[in-house]
Protein backbone atom coordinates (compact mmCIF):
# COMPACT_ATOMS: atom_id res chain seq x y z
CA UNK A 1 0.00 0.00 0.00
CA UNK A 2 1.41 3.42 -0.91
CA UNK A 3 2.08 5.95 1.82
CA UNK A 4 -0.77 8.42 2.44
CA UNK A 5 1.48 11.37 1.64
CA UNK A 6 4.75 11.04 -0.24
CA UNK A 7 7.16 13.91 -0.68
CA UNK A 8 9.77 13.67 -3.42
CA UNK A 9 12.87 15.86 -3.54
CA UNK A 10 10.99 18.86 -2.15
CA UNK A 11 12.51 22.33 -2.00
CA UNK A 12 10.65 25.10 -0.19
CA UNK A 13 11.81 28.60 0.56
CA UNK A 14 10.28 31.76 1.95
CA UNK A 15 11.54 35.33 1.69
CA UNK A 16 14.78 34.07 0.11
CA UNK A 17 15.49 31.63 2.97
CA UNK A 18 15.53 27.92 2.29
CA UNK A 19 13.20 25.87 4.50
CA UNK A 20 14.11 22.48 3.09
CA UNK A 21 16.05 21.09 0.11
CA UNK A 22 15.80 17.63 -1.38
CA UNK A 23 13.33 16.57 1.28
CA UNK A 24 11.91 13.06 0.93
CA UNK A 25 9.15 11.95 3.26
CA UNK A 26 6.71 9.07 3.41
CA UNK A 27 3.86 9.53 5.83
CA UNK A 28 2.11 6.22 6.34
CA UNK A 29 -1.36 5.66 7.70
CA UNK A 30 -1.38 5.36 11.48
CA UNK A 31 1.70 7.55 11.92
CA UNK A 32 1.96 10.73 13.99
CA UNK A 33 4.72 13.14 12.99
CA UNK A 34 6.10 16.06 14.94
CA UNK A 35 7.70 18.98 13.08
CA UNK A 36 10.25 20.81 15.20
CA UNK A 37 12.31 23.92 14.64
CA UNK A 38 13.04 27.42 15.85
CA UNK A 39 10.71 30.37 15.34
CA UNK A 40 10.64 31.58 11.76
CA UNK A 41 12.48 28.54 10.39
CA UNK A 42 9.56 27.76 8.02
CA UNK A 43 7.52 25.07 9.77
CA UNK A 44 4.20 26.69 8.88
CA UNK A 45 5.35 27.36 5.31
CA UNK A 46 6.24 23.69 4.93
CA UNK A 47 2.88 22.64 6.39
CA UNK A 48 0.99 24.87 3.93
CA UNK A 49 3.07 23.46 1.09
CA UNK A 50 2.21 19.90 2.13
CA UNK A 51 -1.48 20.90 2.09
CA UNK A 52 -1.10 22.18 -1.47
CA UNK A 53 -1.89 25.75 -0.43
CA UNK A 54 1.51 27.01 -1.60
CA UNK A 55 3.63 25.94 -4.55
CA UNK A 56 7.03 24.41 -3.72
CA UNK A 57 10.20 25.61 -5.49
CA UNK A 58 10.85 22.10 -6.69
CA UNK A 59 9.76 18.53 -6.07
CA UNK A 60 6.44 16.74 -5.99
CA UNK A 61 3.94 15.88 -3.29
CA UNK A 62 1.77 12.82 -3.82
CA UNK A 63 -1.51 12.11 -2.07
CA UNK A 64 -1.70 8.32 -2.20
CA UNK A 65 -0.26 8.08 -5.73
CA UNK A 66 -1.66 11.26 -7.28
CA UNK A 67 0.45 14.41 -7.56
CA UNK A 68 -1.24 17.10 -5.44
CA UNK A 69 -1.06 19.64 -8.26
CA UNK A 70 -3.21 17.43 -10.51
CA UNK A 71 -6.02 17.04 -7.97
CA UNK A 72 -8.94 19.45 -7.70
CA UNK A 73 -8.90 21.46 -4.45
CA UNK A 74 -12.21 19.98 -3.40
CA UNK A 75 -10.82 16.47 -3.69
CA UNK A 76 -7.74 17.44 -1.64
CA UNK A 77 -9.97 18.97 1.04
CA UNK A 78 -11.77 15.66 1.46
CA UNK A 79 -8.43 14.03 2.36
CA UNK A 80 -6.25 16.73 3.92
CA UNK A 81 -7.28 19.27 6.52
CA UNK A 82 -5.26 22.04 8.11
CA UNK A 83 -5.47 23.58 11.55
CA UNK A 84 -4.21 27.13 11.14
CA UNK A 85 -2.51 29.21 13.81
CA UNK A 86 -4.89 32.08 13.28
CA UNK A 87 -8.55 32.18 12.40
CA UNK A 88 -10.30 35.13 10.79
CA UNK A 89 -13.90 36.00 11.43
CA UNK A 90 -14.73 39.52 10.29
CA UNK A 91 -18.41 38.57 10.05
CA UNK A 92 -20.64 37.17 12.79
CA UNK A 93 -21.28 33.42 12.86
CA UNK A 94 -22.33 30.89 15.46
CA UNK A 95 -20.25 28.04 16.86
CA UNK A 96 -22.37 25.47 15.01
CA UNK A 97 -22.13 27.35 11.68
CA UNK A 98 -18.36 27.46 12.11
CA UNK A 99 -18.12 23.72 12.79
CA UNK A 100 -20.42 23.00 9.84
CA UNK A 101 -18.10 24.61 7.28
CA UNK A 102 -16.03 21.45 7.69
CA UNK A 103 -18.64 19.76 5.48
CA UNK A 104 -18.04 22.22 2.64
CA UNK A 105 -15.81 19.91 0.56
CA UNK A 106 -18.52 17.23 0.51
CA UNK A 107 -21.44 19.41 -0.61
CA UNK A 108 -22.42 20.37 -4.15
CA UNK A 109 -23.11 23.95 -5.20
CA UNK A 110 -26.85 23.92 -4.45
CA UNK A 111 -26.77 21.60 -1.42
CA UNK A 112 -27.71 22.62 2.08
CA UNK A 113 -26.15 20.74 4.98
CA UNK A 114 -28.09 17.54 5.66
CA UNK A 115 -29.33 16.16 8.96
CA UNK A 116 -26.26 13.93 8.94
CA UNK A 117 -23.90 16.88 8.46
CA UNK A 118 -25.50 18.60 11.45
CA UNK A 119 -25.06 15.41 13.47
CA UNK A 120 -21.36 15.20 12.54
CA UNK A 121 -20.86 18.83 13.59
CA UNK A 122 -22.67 18.30 16.89
CA UNK A 123 -20.59 15.18 17.58
CA UNK A 124 -17.40 17.07 16.83
CA UNK A 125 -18.41 19.89 19.17
CA UNK A 126 -19.19 17.33 21.89
CA UNK A 127 -15.80 15.69 21.31
CA UNK A 128 -13.99 18.93 22.15
CA UNK A 129 -16.31 19.67 25.08
CA UNK A 130 -18.28 22.42 23.35
CA UNK A 131 -21.73 20.88 23.17
CA UNK A 132 -24.17 23.36 24.63
CA UNK A 133 -22.30 26.27 23.03
CA UNK A 134 -23.67 25.59 19.52
CA UNK A 135 -25.66 28.80 19.17
CA UNK A 136 -23.05 31.09 20.74
CA UNK A 137 -21.37 33.73 18.55
CA UNK A 138 -17.86 32.53 17.67
CA UNK A 139 -16.57 36.08 18.21
CA UNK A 140 -17.35 35.89 21.92
CA UNK A 141 -15.20 32.80 22.57
CA UNK A 142 -11.92 32.79 24.48
CA UNK A 143 -8.65 31.89 22.76
CA UNK A 144 -8.74 28.30 24.02
CA UNK A 145 -12.39 27.88 23.05
CA UNK A 146 -11.63 29.21 19.56
CA UNK A 147 -8.84 26.67 19.23
CA UNK A 148 -11.19 23.87 20.28
CA UNK A 149 -13.80 25.13 17.81
CA UNK A 150 -11.18 25.08 15.03
CA UNK A 151 -10.37 21.48 16.00
CA UNK A 152 -14.09 20.61 15.97
CA UNK A 153 -14.30 22.06 12.43
CA UNK A 154 -11.38 19.83 11.48
CA UNK A 155 -13.12 16.78 12.96
CA UNK A 156 -16.28 17.66 11.02
CA UNK A 157 -14.15 17.73 7.87
CA UNK A 158 -13.16 14.14 8.72
CA UNK A 159 -9.92 14.05 6.69
CA UNK A 160 -7.36 11.27 6.20
CA UNK A 161 -4.37 13.50 6.91
CA UNK A 162 -4.42 16.12 9.66
CA UNK A 163 -1.89 18.94 9.38
CA UNK A 164 -1.87 20.76 12.70
CA UNK A 165 -0.09 24.06 13.26
CA UNK A 166 0.54 24.23 17.02
CA UNK A 167 -2.60 22.35 18.08
CA UNK A 168 -1.90 22.89 21.78
CA UNK A 169 -1.89 26.69 21.39
CA UNK A 170 -4.10 28.47 23.93
CA UNK A 171 -5.27 25.18 25.42
CA UNK A 172 -5.06 24.57 29.18
CA UNK A 173 -3.19 21.47 30.33
CA UNK A 174 -6.33 19.39 30.64
CA UNK A 175 -7.50 20.21 27.13
CA UNK A 176 -4.00 19.79 25.68
CA UNK A 177 -4.08 16.19 26.83
CA UNK A 178 -7.73 15.32 26.11
CA UNK A 179 -7.71 16.86 22.65
CA UNK A 180 -4.37 15.44 21.55
CA UNK A 181 -5.41 12.07 23.03
CA UNK A 182 -8.54 12.22 20.89
CA UNK A 183 -6.76 13.23 17.68
CA UNK A 184 -3.96 10.69 18.06
CA UNK A 185 -6.33 7.88 19.04
CA UNK A 186 -8.52 8.57 15.98
CA UNK A 187 -5.43 8.68 13.79
CA UNK A 188 -4.20 5.28 14.95
CA UNK A 189 -7.57 3.53 15.18
CA UNK A 190 -8.90 4.71 11.82
CA UNK A 191 -5.66 4.50 9.87
CA UNK A 192 -5.31 8.24 9.32
CA UNK A 193 -2.11 10.22 9.66
CA UNK A 194 -1.20 13.33 11.60
CA UNK A 195 1.52 15.95 11.36
CA UNK A 196 1.87 18.52 14.06
CA UNK A 197 4.04 21.55 14.60
CA UNK A 198 4.78 22.20 18.23
CA UNK A 199 7.28 23.69 20.62
CA UNK A 200 6.48 21.46 23.60
CA UNK A 201 8.95 18.60 23.37
CA UNK A 202 7.14 16.67 26.08
CA UNK A 203 3.91 16.69 24.10
CA UNK A 204 5.83 15.69 20.97
CA UNK A 205 7.47 12.82 22.84
CA UNK A 206 4.14 11.74 24.28
CA UNK A 207 2.15 11.70 21.05
CA UNK A 208 4.42 11.41 18.02
CA UNK A 209 6.16 8.33 16.69
CA UNK A 210 8.16 10.18 14.04
CA UNK A 211 9.78 13.59 13.91
CA UNK A 212 11.08 16.00 11.29
CA UNK A 213 13.56 18.64 12.38
CA UNK A 214 14.14 21.83 10.41
CA UNK A 215 17.58 23.27 11.15
CA UNK A 216 17.43 26.18 8.71
CA UNK A 217 19.40 26.75 5.49
CA UNK A 218 17.47 23.84 4.02
CA UNK A 219 18.92 21.23 6.37
CA UNK A 220 16.58 18.67 7.86
CA UNK A 221 16.66 15.34 9.64
CA UNK A 222 13.87 12.87 10.16
CA UNK A 223 13.03 9.43 11.40
CA UNK A 224 11.61 7.46 14.29
CA UNK A 225 11.21 9.60 17.38
CA UNK A 226 13.72 7.96 19.78
CA UNK A 227 16.50 8.26 17.20
CA UNK A 228 15.67 11.87 16.36
CA UNK A 229 14.76 13.39 19.71
CA UNK A 230 18.29 13.21 21.16
CA UNK A 231 20.04 15.76 23.36
CA UNK A 232 22.57 16.34 20.60
CA UNK A 233 19.97 17.03 17.87
CA UNK A 234 17.90 19.22 20.18
CA UNK A 235 20.89 21.31 21.22
CA UNK A 236 21.65 21.89 17.55
CA UNK A 237 17.99 22.54 16.72
CA UNK A 238 17.31 25.20 19.31
CA UNK A 239 20.88 26.43 19.91
CA UNK A 240 20.26 25.72 23.58
CA UNK A 241 21.35 22.77 25.74
CA UNK A 242 18.45 20.47 26.60
CA UNK A 243 18.61 17.53 29.01
CA UNK A 244 16.58 14.38 28.74
CA UNK A 245 15.46 12.52 31.90
CA UNK A 246 13.50 9.36 32.35
CA UNK A 247 10.61 9.78 34.78
CA UNK A 248 8.32 6.80 35.38
CA UNK A 249 9.31 5.29 32.02
CA UNK A 250 8.54 8.51 30.14
CA UNK A 251 11.14 10.75 28.59
CA UNK A 252 11.07 14.31 29.89
CA UNK A 253 12.96 17.21 28.31
CA UNK A 254 14.24 20.10 30.38
CA UNK A 255 16.12 23.10 29.02
CA UNK A 256 19.24 24.01 30.99
Amino acid at each position, binding site marked *: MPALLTVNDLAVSIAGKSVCRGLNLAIERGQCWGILGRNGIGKTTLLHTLAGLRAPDAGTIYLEEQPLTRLP*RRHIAQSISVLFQHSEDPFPSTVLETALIGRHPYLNAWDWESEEDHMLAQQALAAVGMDGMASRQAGTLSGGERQRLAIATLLTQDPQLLLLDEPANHLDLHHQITILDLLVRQTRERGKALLMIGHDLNLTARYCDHALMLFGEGETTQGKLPQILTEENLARLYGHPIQCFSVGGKRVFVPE
Partner: protein
Amino acid sequence: MKNGVLMRKRVLLPSLFLLSVASVILALAFGSVTIRWPELWAVLNGAGGLNRSLMLDLRLPRAASAFATGGLLALAGALMQVLLRNPLADPYILGISGGAAVGALLSMLLGASGAWLTGSAFGGALLSMLLVFTLAHGHGSWTSSHLLLTGVVCAAGWGAVISFILAISPDAQLRGMLFWLMGNLSHADNPWPGLIVLALGVMACLPLARNLNVLSRGELQAGALGVAIAPLRWQIYLIASLLTAVAVTLAGSVGFVGLVVPHLLRLAIGNDQRLLLPAAVLLGGSLLTVADTLARTVVAPQQLPVGVITALLGVPVFLYLLQRSPR
Protein backbone atom coordinates in the same frame (compact mmCIF):
# COMPACT_ATOMS: atom_id res chain seq x y z
CA MET B 1 -30.79 24.58 14.69
CA LYS B 2 -31.20 23.41 11.13
CA ASN B 3 -34.91 23.90 11.45
CA GLY B 4 -34.24 27.40 12.77
CA VAL B 5 -32.25 28.25 9.68
CA LEU B 6 -34.83 26.75 7.34
CA MET B 7 -37.55 28.57 9.25
CA ARG B 8 -35.76 31.89 8.81
CA LYS B 9 -35.26 31.11 5.14
CA ARG B 10 -38.90 30.24 4.70
CA VAL B 11 -40.15 33.36 6.45
CA LEU B 12 -37.52 35.89 5.42
CA LEU B 13 -37.55 35.66 1.66
CA PRO B 14 -41.36 35.59 1.23
CA SER B 15 -41.78 38.54 3.59
CA LEU B 16 -39.10 40.51 1.78
CA PHE B 17 -40.84 39.62 -1.48
CA LEU B 18 -44.11 41.03 -0.13
CA LEU B 19 -42.21 44.13 0.99
CA SER B 20 -40.88 44.51 -2.55
CA VAL B 21 -44.36 44.28 -4.07
CA ALA B 22 -45.66 46.78 -1.50
CA SER B 23 -42.85 49.22 -2.27
CA VAL B 24 -43.62 49.10 -5.99
CA ILE B 25 -47.36 49.65 -5.37
CA LEU B 26 -46.46 52.59 -3.13
CA ALA B 27 -44.31 54.02 -5.91
CA LEU B 28 -47.22 53.64 -8.37
CA ALA B 29 -49.68 55.41 -6.07
CA PHE B 30 -47.64 58.40 -4.91
CA GLY B 31 -46.13 61.26 -6.85
CA SER B 32 -47.05 64.76 -7.88
CA VAL B 33 -50.60 63.38 -8.22
CA THR B 34 -51.71 60.89 -5.60
CA ILE B 35 -53.79 58.01 -6.88
CA ARG B 36 -56.28 56.67 -4.35
CA TRP B 37 -56.73 52.98 -3.59
CA PRO B 38 -60.00 52.41 -5.51
CA GLU B 39 -58.48 54.03 -8.63
CA LEU B 40 -55.27 52.10 -8.15
CA TRP B 41 -57.21 48.88 -7.83
CA ALA B 42 -59.25 49.71 -10.93
CA VAL B 43 -56.09 50.26 -12.99
CA LEU B 44 -54.52 47.04 -11.71
CA ASN B 45 -57.72 45.32 -12.86
CA GLY B 46 -57.40 46.76 -16.33
CA ALA B 47 -59.17 50.13 -16.29
CA GLY B 48 -57.81 52.62 -18.82
CA GLY B 49 -57.54 56.38 -18.82
CA LEU B 50 -55.13 59.00 -17.55
CA ASN B 51 -54.40 57.18 -14.29
CA ARG B 52 -53.38 54.13 -16.24
CA SER B 53 -50.83 55.92 -18.36
CA LEU B 54 -49.57 57.84 -15.31
CA MET B 55 -49.05 54.65 -13.34
CA LEU B 56 -47.93 52.17 -15.96
CA ASP B 57 -46.14 54.37 -18.51
CA LEU B 58 -44.52 56.92 -16.21
CA ARG B 59 -44.25 55.56 -12.70
CA LEU B 60 -43.82 51.81 -13.30
CA PRO B 61 -40.64 52.06 -15.44
CA ARG B 62 -39.13 54.42 -12.89
CA ALA B 63 -40.14 52.22 -9.93
CA ALA B 64 -38.71 49.18 -11.71
CA SER B 65 -35.47 51.10 -12.39
CA ALA B 66 -35.29 52.07 -8.73
CA PHE B 67 -35.85 48.48 -7.66
CA ALA B 68 -33.24 47.17 -10.10
CA THR B 69 -30.69 49.78 -9.01
CA GLY B 70 -31.26 49.06 -5.31
CA GLY B 71 -31.03 45.32 -5.88
CA LEU B 72 -27.85 45.66 -7.97
CA LEU B 73 -26.17 47.88 -5.38
CA ALA B 74 -27.12 45.73 -2.39
CA LEU B 75 -25.93 42.56 -4.14
CA ALA B 76 -22.69 44.19 -5.27
CA GLY B 77 -22.14 45.55 -1.75
CA ALA B 78 -22.63 42.14 -0.16
CA LEU B 79 -20.16 40.60 -2.64
CA MET B 80 -17.55 43.33 -2.10
CA GLN B 81 -17.77 42.90 1.66
CA VAL B 82 -16.98 39.21 1.39
CA LEU B 83 -14.33 39.73 -1.29
CA LEU B 84 -12.48 42.29 0.82
CA ARG B 85 -13.50 40.60 4.08
CA ASN B 86 -14.43 44.02 5.34
CA PRO B 87 -17.96 44.74 6.53
CA LEU B 88 -17.44 48.42 5.74
CA ALA B 89 -16.86 47.89 2.01
CA ASP B 90 -19.47 49.22 -0.42
CA PRO B 91 -19.88 48.81 -4.19
CA TYR B 92 -18.07 52.09 -4.86
CA ILE B 93 -15.06 51.45 -2.66
CA LEU B 94 -12.89 50.27 -5.56
CA GLY B 95 -13.53 53.36 -7.66
CA ILE B 96 -16.11 52.05 -10.14
CA SER B 97 -18.54 54.90 -9.54
CA GLY B 98 -15.67 57.38 -9.82
CA GLY B 99 -14.81 56.11 -13.30
CA ALA B 100 -18.48 56.21 -14.31
CA ALA B 101 -18.83 59.75 -12.93
CA VAL B 102 -15.84 61.00 -14.90
CA GLY B 103 -17.31 59.46 -18.06
CA ALA B 104 -20.74 60.96 -17.41
CA LEU B 105 -19.48 64.44 -16.45
CA LEU B 106 -17.14 64.62 -19.45
CA SER B 107 -20.01 63.80 -21.80
CA MET B 108 -22.20 66.41 -20.07
CA LEU B 109 -19.39 68.94 -20.43
CA LEU B 110 -19.34 68.20 -24.15
CA GLY B 111 -23.09 68.73 -24.24
CA ALA B 112 -24.05 65.11 -24.82
CA SER B 113 -27.12 63.47 -23.31
CA GLY B 114 -29.22 60.33 -23.57
CA ALA B 115 -27.42 57.28 -24.94
CA TRP B 116 -24.08 59.11 -25.16
CA LEU B 117 -24.24 59.96 -21.48
CA THR B 118 -25.16 56.46 -20.32
CA GLY B 119 -22.67 54.97 -22.76
CA SER B 120 -19.78 57.04 -21.47
CA ALA B 121 -20.77 56.43 -17.84
CA PHE B 122 -20.71 52.67 -18.47
CA GLY B 123 -17.45 53.01 -20.38
CA GLY B 124 -15.89 54.92 -17.48
CA ALA B 125 -17.03 52.24 -15.03
CA LEU B 126 -15.53 49.46 -17.18
CA LEU B 127 -12.30 51.41 -17.61
CA SER B 128 -12.00 51.87 -13.86
CA MET B 129 -12.73 48.19 -13.30
CA LEU B 130 -10.02 47.09 -15.76
CA LEU B 131 -7.55 49.60 -14.36
CA VAL B 132 -7.95 48.32 -10.78
CA PHE B 133 -7.97 44.71 -12.00
CA THR B 134 -4.72 45.16 -13.92
CA LEU B 135 -2.93 47.15 -11.23
CA ALA B 136 -3.96 44.81 -8.41
CA HIS B 137 -3.00 41.77 -10.47
CA GLY B 138 0.34 43.23 -11.56
CA HIS B 139 2.49 41.59 -8.90
CA GLY B 140 1.16 38.10 -9.39
CA SER B 141 0.64 37.64 -5.68
CA TRP B 142 -2.69 39.14 -4.79
CA THR B 143 -4.16 39.93 -1.43
CA SER B 144 -7.45 41.52 -0.54
CA SER B 145 -5.65 44.38 1.20
CA HIS B 146 -3.66 45.01 -1.99
CA LEU B 147 -6.89 45.13 -4.03
CA LEU B 148 -8.53 47.37 -1.43
CA LEU B 149 -5.63 49.84 -1.44
CA THR B 150 -5.42 49.87 -5.24
CA GLY B 151 -9.16 50.49 -5.52
CA VAL B 152 -9.30 53.15 -2.84
CA VAL B 153 -6.39 55.07 -4.34
CA CYS B 154 -7.94 54.87 -7.83
CA ALA B 155 -11.22 56.12 -6.34
CA ALA B 156 -9.35 59.08 -4.82
CA GLY B 157 -7.81 59.79 -8.23
CA TRP B 158 -11.23 59.79 -9.89
CA GLY B 159 -12.45 62.09 -7.12
CA ALA B 160 -9.78 64.62 -8.03
CA VAL B 161 -10.70 64.43 -11.72
CA ILE B 162 -14.39 64.95 -10.82
CA SER B 163 -13.52 68.07 -8.81
CA PHE B 164 -11.46 69.33 -11.73
CA ILE B 165 -14.33 68.84 -14.19
CA LEU B 166 -16.76 70.55 -11.81
CA ALA B 167 -14.34 73.47 -11.43
CA ILE B 168 -14.04 74.11 -15.17
CA SER B 169 -17.71 73.46 -16.06
CA PRO B 170 -20.05 76.33 -16.94
CA ASP B 171 -22.69 77.13 -14.30
CA ALA B 172 -25.53 76.02 -16.55
CA GLN B 173 -24.35 72.41 -16.44
CA LEU B 174 -23.36 72.25 -12.78
CA ARG B 175 -26.85 71.44 -11.53
CA GLY B 176 -27.24 68.43 -13.83
CA MET B 177 -23.76 67.24 -12.89
CA LEU B 178 -24.42 67.50 -9.17
CA PHE B 179 -27.69 65.61 -9.55
CA TRP B 180 -25.85 62.86 -11.41
CA LEU B 181 -23.19 62.68 -8.71
CA MET B 182 -25.76 62.42 -5.92
CA GLY B 183 -27.66 59.65 -7.67
CA ASN B 184 -30.82 60.41 -9.56
CA LEU B 185 -33.45 58.25 -11.22
CA SER B 186 -35.39 60.90 -13.15
CA HIS B 187 -33.90 59.79 -16.48
CA ALA B 188 -34.11 56.08 -15.74
CA ASP B 189 -37.07 55.25 -17.95
CA ASN B 190 -35.85 51.93 -19.32
CA PRO B 191 -35.55 49.42 -16.47
CA TRP B 192 -34.90 46.35 -18.63
CA PRO B 193 -31.07 46.35 -18.79
CA GLY B 194 -30.95 46.74 -14.99
CA LEU B 195 -33.54 44.04 -14.32
CA ILE B 196 -31.93 41.57 -16.72
CA VAL B 197 -28.42 42.12 -15.32
CA LEU B 198 -29.82 41.81 -11.80
CA ALA B 199 -31.45 38.48 -12.64
CA LEU B 200 -28.24 37.21 -14.29
CA GLY B 201 -26.21 38.42 -11.31
CA VAL B 202 -28.39 36.56 -8.83
CA MET B 203 -28.22 33.40 -10.91
CA ALA B 204 -24.42 33.65 -11.12
CA CYS B 205 -23.99 34.27 -7.38
CA LEU B 206 -26.33 31.78 -5.78
CA PRO B 207 -24.34 28.64 -6.69
CA LEU B 208 -21.21 30.38 -5.31
CA ALA B 209 -22.88 31.38 -2.06
CA ARG B 210 -21.51 28.61 0.16
CA ASN B 211 -18.03 29.18 -1.28
CA LEU B 212 -18.44 32.79 -0.20
CA ASN B 213 -19.34 31.68 3.33
CA VAL B 214 -16.04 29.85 3.47
CA LEU B 215 -14.11 32.67 1.78
CA SER B 216 -15.33 35.10 4.42
CA ARG B 217 -13.25 33.11 6.93
CA GLY B 218 -10.02 33.83 5.13
CA GLU B 219 -8.38 32.66 1.93
CA LEU B 220 -6.13 30.01 3.47
CA GLN B 221 -9.00 28.49 5.41
CA ALA B 222 -11.17 28.53 2.28
CA GLY B 223 -8.37 26.87 0.29
CA ALA B 224 -8.01 24.16 2.93
CA LEU B 225 -11.76 23.55 2.69
CA GLY B 226 -11.59 22.93 -1.04
CA VAL B 227 -12.32 26.33 -2.60
CA ALA B 228 -10.24 27.25 -5.66
CA ILE B 229 -9.43 30.72 -4.38
CA ALA B 230 -8.00 32.61 -7.35
CA PRO B 231 -10.84 31.88 -9.82
CA LEU B 232 -13.48 32.57 -7.15
CA ARG B 233 -11.88 35.89 -6.25
CA TRP B 234 -11.88 37.11 -9.84
CA GLN B 235 -15.37 35.85 -10.50
CA ILE B 236 -16.67 37.79 -7.52
CA TYR B 237 -14.68 40.89 -8.46
CA LEU B 238 -16.00 40.82 -12.03
CA ILE B 239 -19.61 40.12 -11.05
CA ALA B 240 -19.66 42.78 -8.31
CA SER B 241 -18.00 45.34 -10.59
CA LEU B 242 -20.37 44.72 -13.49
CA LEU B 243 -23.41 44.96 -11.23
CA THR B 244 -22.10 48.25 -9.87
CA ALA B 245 -21.30 49.57 -13.33
CA VAL B 246 -24.86 48.88 -14.51
CA ALA B 247 -26.36 50.44 -11.35
CA VAL B 248 -24.23 53.56 -11.69
CA THR B 249 -25.11 53.87 -15.36
CA LEU B 250 -28.83 53.67 -14.49
CA ALA B 251 -28.90 56.08 -11.59
CA GLY B 252 -25.54 57.73 -10.89
CA SER B 253 -23.84 57.02 -7.60
CA VAL B 254 -26.61 56.35 -5.11
CA GLY B 255 -24.89 55.96 -1.76
CA PHE B 256 -25.43 53.79 1.31
CA VAL B 257 -27.77 51.14 -0.14
CA GLY B 258 -24.84 48.85 -0.92
CA LEU B 259 -23.28 49.42 2.47
CA VAL B 260 -26.26 49.40 4.83
CA VAL B 261 -28.49 46.69 3.36
CA PRO B 262 -26.08 43.73 3.64
CA HIS B 263 -25.02 44.98 7.05
CA LEU B 264 -28.57 45.23 8.29
CA LEU B 265 -29.39 41.72 7.05
CA ARG B 266 -26.23 40.31 8.56
CA LEU B 267 -27.30 41.58 11.96
CA ALA B 268 -30.74 40.05 11.51
CA ILE B 269 -30.00 36.64 9.96
CA GLY B 270 -26.22 36.09 10.20
CA ASN B 271 -23.71 35.77 7.41
CA ASP B 272 -25.01 32.80 5.40
CA GLN B 273 -24.67 34.12 1.86
CA ARG B 274 -27.23 31.64 0.54
CA LEU B 275 -29.85 33.69 2.38
CA LEU B 276 -28.07 37.01 2.54
CA LEU B 277 -27.59 37.52 -1.21
CA PRO B 278 -31.22 37.04 -2.34
CA ALA B 279 -32.45 38.90 0.75
CA ALA B 280 -30.12 41.81 -0.03
CA VAL B 281 -31.53 42.06 -3.56
CA LEU B 282 -35.12 42.26 -2.28
CA LEU B 283 -34.40 44.61 0.61
CA GLY B 284 -32.09 46.87 -1.42
CA GLY B 285 -34.66 47.05 -4.21
CA SER B 286 -37.50 47.90 -1.82
CA LEU B 287 -35.42 50.49 0.01
CA LEU B 288 -34.47 52.36 -3.14
CA THR B 289 -38.01 52.18 -4.52
CA VAL B 290 -39.35 53.77 -1.32
CA ALA B 291 -36.52 56.32 -1.26
CA ASP B 292 -37.21 57.29 -4.87
CA THR B 293 -40.92 57.67 -4.10
CA LEU B 294 -39.93 60.05 -1.29
CA ALA B 295 -37.55 61.86 -3.64
CA ARG B 296 -40.45 62.47 -6.04
CA THR B 297 -42.99 63.52 -3.42
CA VAL B 298 -41.28 65.36 -0.55
CA VAL B 299 -40.93 68.67 -2.40
CA ALA B 300 -43.24 67.85 -5.36
CA PRO B 301 -43.48 68.94 -8.11
CA GLN B 302 -39.74 69.44 -7.65
CA GLN B 303 -37.62 66.28 -7.43
CA LEU B 304 -34.76 65.51 -5.09
CA PRO B 305 -31.84 63.30 -6.13
CA VAL B 306 -32.60 59.88 -4.63
CA GLY B 307 -29.02 59.65 -3.33
CA VAL B 308 -29.82 62.44 -0.89
CA ILE B 309 -32.71 60.44 0.53
CA THR B 310 -30.75 57.19 0.84
CA ALA B 311 -27.89 59.06 2.51
CA LEU B 312 -30.25 60.82 4.92
CA LEU B 313 -31.81 57.46 5.77
CA GLY B 314 -28.54 55.57 5.59
CA VAL B 315 -26.31 57.69 7.81
CA PRO B 316 -28.40 57.44 11.00
CA VAL B 317 -29.15 53.74 10.41
CA PHE B 318 -25.49 53.01 9.90
CA LEU B 319 -24.37 54.98 12.96
CA TYR B 320 -27.01 53.18 15.01
CA LEU B 321 -25.75 49.79 13.81
CA LEU B 322 -22.18 50.78 14.54
CA GLN B 323 -23.12 51.76 18.09
CA ARG B 324 -24.97 48.50 18.61
CA SER B 325 -22.36 46.17 17.14
CA PRO B 326 -20.58 44.14 19.84
CA ARG B 327 -17.09 44.55 18.42
